[in-house]
């Protein structure tokens, strides 16, 4: 049975993934509107620029074939007489709770740009949430085609404004001002943070700052004064003058854009791991040997999709992307993931950075745990190559994860290649982490590591890094593709 549709709140339709195809079931009432939008210049421009997901209506023959699949019956029954559209598939979906702030900011920019461009064609966004956006590498792409609706030309109100503030502006503000990680916000809150919640964090001075007044304080005061039973507030408003309504909306988008620019994340100079590349324990020949080893493995196996675990600032992710792979780079440090995003965007590399801690990977979220699949669910069998460089001592010592478990996870994720760095317990960094618990790792050595690897992988080659207690391994997965 299929998991519940990952998108079902919109009464205009639902979206689900079936046999690696992304299908959107649209109600009979919403079909003309979606088709009309897809024919606009705005849609064509955004699709050509790869900023809107390419979408096509399935022909009747194709739809009839899908009707035969019993798993799709509930979706067909929910939209009787409707149509099925197919979207291009984004190969690895990353969700807002896994994004560094830089990616949330870029997603906010795309949302506003689309809202402004669609307005000129008589369309508007009926919702404005980061869940409408996925990333292809470092570039955001708007995927919720049903978010666009025809607007009354004289309506001066953008109903999605509050959601844009809750899910883009306030999380960026909370991260910037109080260092609140986005994962902490989006893992437990589907719809972002309310101004009232942010208001409680603010000092008196902050509450009175001009930007905070508009974003946080005034909406909070107004919601306290207004009666919660007053339904008049929500009544649609239509002005006598359509030009005036357009002027008001354009001005609103301009103000939101200014606020978003004010909240643009700045590159963090230092975080727990962001300066690792300058302070790591290798000398130049050892690092050059490591780099050459990884490059050679990538050239030999030519993996199409690579997962770089513990990617740090993305040195080896860049290497993999330059070798032609589509890379997902994960690190538990948001500053590192943000640095990778900047680097990938600047060099136009196909790298998707995500804030994921492999010891506590993102769980499945949402209704029935079906709206955002867990990280491991998405990663299993999704990669041809996995890089685990300067990582296993953190998993072994800090997280106390058995070596066999680490290798089993790598085996589940990769279809072909694993490049892993083994770190002897004598290593300086390893010892720094053990903090007097050396005896726990006394039996660990290269021979024991190789024995553990043999359960799932065959060793293609290995190399001792000169002047270090580390050894690189190039491993081939046993037993074929996942």
């Amino acid at each position, binding site marked *: 049975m299929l998991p519940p549709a990952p998108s079902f709140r919109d009464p205009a339709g639902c979206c689900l993934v079936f046999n690696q195809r992304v299908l959107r079931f649209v109600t009979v009432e919403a079909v003309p509107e979606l088709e009309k939008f897809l024919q606009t210049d705005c849609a064509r421009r955004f699709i050509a620029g790869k900023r809107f997901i390419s979408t096509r209506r399935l022909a009747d023959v194709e739809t009839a074939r899908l009707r035969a699949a019993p798993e799709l019956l509930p979706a067909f029954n929910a939209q009787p007489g409707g149509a099925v559209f197919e979207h291009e598939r984004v190969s690895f979906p990353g969700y807002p709770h896994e994004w560094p702030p830089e990616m949330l900011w870029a997603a906010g920019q795309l949302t506003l740009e689309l809202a402004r461009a669609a307005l000129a064609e008589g369309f508007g966004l*009926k919702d404005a*949430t980061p869940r409408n956006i996925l990333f292809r590498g470092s570039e955001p792409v708007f995927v919720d085609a049903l978010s666009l*609706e025809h607007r009354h030309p004289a309506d001066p109100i953008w109903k999605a*404004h509050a959601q844009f503030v809750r899910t883009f502006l306030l999380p960026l503000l909370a991260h910037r001002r109080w260092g609140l990680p986005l994962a902490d916000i989006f893992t437990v809150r589907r719809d972002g943070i309310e101004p009232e919640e942010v208001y409680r964090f603010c000092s008196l001075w902050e509450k009175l700052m001009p930007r905070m007044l508009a974003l946080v304080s005034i*909406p909070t005061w107004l919601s306290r004064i207004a009666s919660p039973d007053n339904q008049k507030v929500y009544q649609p408003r239509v002005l006598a003058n359509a030009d005036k309504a357009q002027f*008001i909306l354009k001005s609103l988008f301009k103000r939101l854009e200014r606020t978003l620019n004010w909240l643009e994340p700045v590159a963090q100079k230092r975080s727990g791991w962001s300066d690792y590349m300058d302070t790591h324990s290798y000398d130049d020949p050892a690092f050059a040997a490591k780099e050459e080893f990884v490059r050679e493995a990538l050239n030999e196996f030519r993996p199409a999709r690579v997962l770089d675990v513990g990617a740090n600032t993305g040195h080896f992710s860049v290497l993999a992307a330059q070798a032609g792979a589509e890379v997902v780079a994960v690190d538990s440090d948001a500053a590192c993931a943000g640095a990778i995003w900047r680097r990938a965007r600047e060099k136009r590399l196909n790298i998707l950075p995500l804030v994921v801690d492999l010891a506590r990977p993102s769980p499945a979220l949402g209704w029935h745990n079906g709206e955002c699949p867990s990280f491991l669910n998405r990663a299993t069998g999704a990669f041809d190559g996995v890089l685990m460089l300067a990582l296993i001592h953190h998993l072994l010592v800090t997280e106390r994860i058995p070596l066999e478990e680490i290798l089993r996870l790598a085996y589940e994720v990769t279809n072909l290649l694993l490049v892993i760095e083994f770190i002897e317990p004598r290593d300086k960094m390893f010892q720094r982490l053990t903090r007097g618990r050396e005896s726990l790792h006394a039996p660990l050595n290269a021979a024991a590591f190789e024995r553990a690897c043999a359960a799932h992988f065959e060793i293609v080659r290995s190399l001792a890094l000169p002047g270090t207690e580390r050894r690189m391994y190039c491993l081939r997965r046993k037993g074929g593709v996942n």
Partner: protein
Amino acid sequence: MIIVAYIDPGMGALIWQTITAAFVGLIFYLKKTRRWIVNGFRKMFQRGQKAATLTANKTPAAEVEAKTEVR
């Protein structure tokens, strides 16, 4: 067809958006009035300039005509 938004429009934020919309609506009329006045002046100025140009263009012809008559 207009589908009613299914998301929470937020009460405080929606009232604040309505208040700012009213304020921006005033700016719209102020801008419109300013444009109307500026255009009015521009038209007047252009009309004056056109008349002056016409006079300037007509003068040599009139002079030629006058001279011809004298001959």
